[in-house]
């Protein structure tokens, strides 16, 4: 298992039947991308205050505590363990909430560690209100490494759902202008896949 802190969080969320996923930079290796990151971000899909209170209670029994009083309509709270701390999100991202399809598309990374689908992960990066150049860099890398396995139809649907097609097209402009002879074919392939064109 990964480490005691994460193991406890994922074990307890599993016992309480609360879907939980690693989000943010730490989830990147699930999509064959890596960078140094300073945070543990976990998103949980909990639908009642009672269940959230229970989750906090069982975490406390395992010495993982929060100094806040999280409410079901909050976005985020912090938990502290012995050598780790984590941000627990009650949404996948500050710009949108969980929905059934997103939960169904959660994928197993390893052991009992889960992540969002690559499509939804990219969406969390694109939609966040304080989006930075690091988020854009992460998106580009995930697109490159998952282009063959991504469900592009679902991704297009999500972009429309969140109203960010135009902003994603700004990312695609980068691929359109790729003049590097070693990579421009891959860039073209990404563009073709997004535009639902035949890929050789």
């Amino acid at each position, binding site marked *: 298992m*990964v*480490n005691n802190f*994460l193991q406890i969080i994922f074990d307890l969320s599993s016992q309480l039947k609360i879907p939980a996923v690693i989000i943010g*930079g*730490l989830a990147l*290796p*699930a999509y*064959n*991308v*890596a*960078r*140094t*990151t*300073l*945070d*543990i971000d976990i998103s949980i899909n909990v639908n009642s205050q009672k269940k959230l209170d229970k989750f906090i209670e069982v975490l406390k029994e395992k010495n993982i505590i929060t100094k806040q009083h999280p409410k079901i309509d909050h976005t985020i709270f912090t938990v502290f363990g012995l*050598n*780790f*701390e984590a941000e627990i999100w009650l949404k996948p991202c500050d710009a949108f909430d969980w929905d059934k399809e997103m939960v169904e598309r959660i994928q197993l*990374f*390893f052991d009992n*560690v889960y992540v969002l689908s690559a499509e939804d992960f990219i969406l969390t990066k694109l939609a*966040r*209100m304080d*989006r*930075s*150049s690091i988020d*854009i*860099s992460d998106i*580009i*890398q995930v697109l*490159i*490494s998952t282009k063959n396995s991504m469900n592009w139809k679902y991704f297009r649907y999500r972009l429309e759902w969140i109203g960010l097609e135009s*902003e994603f097209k*700004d*990312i695609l*402009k*980068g*691929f359109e*202008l*790729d*003049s*590097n002879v*070693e*990579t421009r074919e*891959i*860039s073209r392939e990404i563009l073709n896949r997004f535009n639902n064109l035949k890929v050789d």
Partner: protein
Amino acid sequence: MDNEKKERAPIVINQTDLDRAYKKVKEYKELLRRGKTSEQIFKDMIRLIQVGK
């Protein structure tokens, strides 16, 4: 009063950004080729996050 609509930073990508992204993806593939797994890379990242013992 906070009536201002929040806007995300505009996205502008140049060739350097793209080249850097391709390079990083290539480096990751190289780690996998050498036998590292994504699970191990994840665990390495976790170790970097660990706060004072």
